[in-house]
């Protein structure tokens, strides 16, 4: 039974220039205890989707479709009820720990607030939980840290605090939006390790949003590749790396450091993602796709269809043969 089920999610922002469809018909699901990675370039709608799930979008955004947390439909839920779920049943970790903590409040204040917003416990009890939470994410002498202000902690420590804060109320769903992107490499590795450790402990469904397939490889069970508001490929991690099916995924794989030693420089997908204000007809990747055919540039866009390998699915007009052949060139096995 999936803990989080998203069906045909459409998130549209009203702007002065017209509506922008940041998320355009996305469906996915995550089971408890599993980690779903969502991969794509910035601006592809990953964050909009995660904020849609959390109900954190500004008023200029409309969300259509269905988001179910367990049995509960979140789309259309009154703001008050959604609020009681946030930070309790579902929690989120943000990209930049430097700016995500309130600079004028102590760590302790912010952690205790998180506890007491959802649980009727005494301040002392909440404080105890905050200490435990900090200890659980590997922060030394957590009691002292409660009195610290965010500015007194390093980026990695702050992200640990953010993680601790997210996990304080034992959420069933944890969304981590680029949790390591803003950190330096060593710290990234530490935080990833922490998340891996925590993953087994918390038994939550985790949605990990990243642009980095390397992170996906380390942490995720399944992965969905997003491009311009749509999911273009979905598979288990092993399957994706073994048989990448979508030209965009190939591009992403090629741009992984260490994967393309022959050219001695990082591969870049040529061109830029399309404007979501006026997205191109047909397959949205077509303008950048080296394999694009006429059919790709015409509506309807290719639907997400099963490849036949397990749960994997891809939205591409290329034939299975071509995809397998080209995919093999980009797969982890070949380059390894």
């Amino acid at each position, binding site marked *: 039974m999936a803990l989080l089920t998203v069906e045909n999610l459409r998130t549209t922002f009203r702007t002065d220039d017209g509506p922008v469809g940041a998320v355009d018909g996305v469906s996915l699901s995550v089971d408890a205890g599993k980690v779903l990675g969502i991969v794509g370039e910035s601006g592809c709608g990953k964050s909009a989707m995660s904020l849609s799930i959390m109900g954190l979008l500004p008023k200029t955004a409309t969300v259509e479709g269905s988001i179910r947390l367990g049995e509960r439909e979140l789309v259309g839920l009154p703001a008050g009820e959604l609020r009681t779920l*946030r930070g309790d049943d579902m929690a989120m970790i943000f990209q930049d720990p430097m*700016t995500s903590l309130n600079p004028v409040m102590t760590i302790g204040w912010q952690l205790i*607030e998180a506890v007491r917003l959802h649980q009727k416990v005494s301040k002392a009890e909440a404080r105890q939980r905050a200490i435990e939470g900090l200890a659980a994410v590997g922060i030394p002498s957590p009691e002292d840290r409660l009195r610290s202000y965010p500015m007194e902690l390093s980026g990695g420590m702050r992200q640990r605090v953010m993680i601790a804060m997210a996990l304080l109320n034992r959420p069933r769903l944890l969304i981590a939006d680029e949790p390591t992107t803003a950190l330096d490499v060593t710290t990234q590795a530490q935080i990833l390790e922490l998340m891996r450790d925590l993953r087994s402990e918390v038994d939550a469904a985790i949605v990990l949003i990243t642009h980095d397939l390397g992170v996906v490889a380390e942490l995720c069970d399944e992965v969905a590749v997003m491009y311009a508001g749509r999911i273009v490929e979905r598979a288990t991690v092993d399957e994706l790396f073994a048989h990448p099916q979508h030209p965009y995924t190939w591009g992403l794989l090629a741009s992984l450091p260490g994967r393309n030693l022959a050219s001695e420089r990082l591969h870049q997908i040529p061109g830029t993602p399309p404007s979501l204000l006026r997205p191109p007809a047909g397959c949205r990747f077509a303008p950048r796709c080296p394999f694009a055919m006429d059919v790709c540039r015409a509506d309807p866009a290719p639907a997400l269809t099963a490849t036949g390998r397990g749960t994997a699915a891809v939205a591409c007009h290329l034939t299975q043969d071509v995809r397998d052949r080209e995919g093999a060139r980009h797969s982890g096995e070949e380059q390894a």
Partner: protein
Amino acid sequence: MIRFLVRRILGGIFVVLVVTLAVFVLFGPVLRWHSNISPARLYAGKNPTPAQIERVSALLGLDKPYYVQYAYTLQRLVLGPTQEERDRVCPGSTAAECDQLLGRFGSSFAKQRSVDSLIWEAFPVTLSLTLIAAVLWLLISIPIGIIAAIRPRSIFDRVSIVFVLIGQSLPVYYFGLLALYFLAYKYQLFPLSGYEPLSDPGQWLYHLLLPASVLALQFAAIYVRITRSQMLDTLSEDYVRTARAKGAGETRIIIRHAFRNAMLPIVTMFGLDLGLLLGGAILIEVTFGLQGLGWLAVEAAKRLDVPTTAGIVLFSAILIVAANIVVDLINASLDPRIRLE
């Protein structure tokens, strides 16, 4: 923290020194050289002879070289007036009488009083006016600014922008006169003029409410604008999103998270405005006949009462410097980034 304070106070003293010098140069040599104005000439009366001017000059202490006068002004500020000056300014008076005539800021040319006593009598008026106005403008502007920020582009927001424009573009004296005409003269809801001391709080408030409101309206406009923009900024901060993700309610987010941070620049501005106003809200005081520091400054300037004018400028400078230090301290207590830097 102590070092922070010491640094601020030393800086403040330096600024006060610079201000005293500027005031001195402006009211002494500059008036003399640029405009051929000598207070002694003015105070010697109508059609004076050179001998009379010279005598008045000696009596006013203007016969010494400028640098001596300046050095003495500083010395008097710190140590109090010398016996020589006491003899000159208040011959035949007892020590207590002389204290009324001559103080650390000197003796008024235009009134038989020490500048200190004039300032201390005027200051409560300005202080009362400023404090009532400050309470009013904060009470008006902060809620309006916050609501406008959380509902940007709403009708409320647009109305508040119109309010800001009106408040900022209406000159305070013009608006003050309108208020006087309608509220005090025509409908007689408020007194036309004057100040009542705090010993009768009802009368005190009754006399100050109209001028304070006019003053407050102008500042409220500025504070609506700054509150709105600060709140818009902080509401889009990541930590506000974090607070939402934690499940905090809107009110809590606005007050405890966003406003707490948005307050910092508002506190800074408020402190400076308060400092400036405490130095005398000239137009309001003159329009409403409130004998505060601003009114006193105008009176003194009108009569080329150099010691009083200079004393008020200096007093205001000290207030502003003090306000700056207080603001810094408050900001430090509100914002650990300042405290810990």
